[in-house]
């Protein structure tokens, strides 16, 4: 069972790039790394998913080193609306292994 470790909270300012790193030392061969974003009183929303190297979409980039024991979510030029909790998940589709963890609370300031 892959356990993830993320910083509890982070602070940033509008226009800056934010990098949130997640550690997953016990990641299994079949596991994918997935990040979700959650605003208060809403359900989580999928941001990005990757297996190795780098993945980029219109919202974020995900960097995964060769050993896959960590991953970094990169949010370019954050705005106030990016203030949310960000969750890192590592799983291969076994539903009883879905653990969201406490996530990282990102606060973006003016």
């Amino acid at each position, binding site marked *: 069972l892959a356990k993830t470790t993320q910083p509890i909270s982070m602070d940033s300012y509008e226009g800056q790039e934010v990098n949130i790193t997640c550690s997953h030392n016990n990641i299994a061969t079949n596991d994918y790394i997935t990040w979700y974003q959650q605003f208060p*009183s809403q359900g989580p929303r999928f941001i990005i998913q990757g297996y190795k190297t780098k993945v980029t979409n219109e919202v974020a980039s995900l960097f995964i080193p060769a050993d896959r024991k960590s991953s970094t979510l990169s949010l370019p030029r954050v705005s106030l609306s990016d203030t949310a909790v960000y969750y890192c998940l590592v799983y291969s589709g076994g539903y009883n292994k879905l653990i969201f963890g406490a*996530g990282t609370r990102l606060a973006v300031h003016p």
Partner: protein
Amino acid sequence: EADIYQTPRYLVIGTGKKITLECSQTMGHDKMYWYQQDPGMELHLIHYSYGVNSTEKGDLSSESTVSRIRTEHFPLTLESARPSHTSQYLCASSEYRGSGLGTDTQYFGPGTRLTVL
């Protein structure tokens, strides 16, 4: 954008009442899930379903029960509500992406905030 709905959004009810939280999705997803989340805390999977007539318990023990009679509908029932059941309940659904294409992306509903007095 995913279409998954939960009703009611907020519910305040007295101890001992039977309640059903509704969840529906219009995407034709086979897999559906129920999570429980206390304010500022982790999400915990309490139930999931692979498809019609399939239900399984998640990693967090729950006194609630679920049913899956139709693909689009996955209601959660508490036979006798207690204050300890006060929490936010989130429903989600996903579609298998295929071997080697990554794991399922889950689409979440807005949640039901339940308060049991």
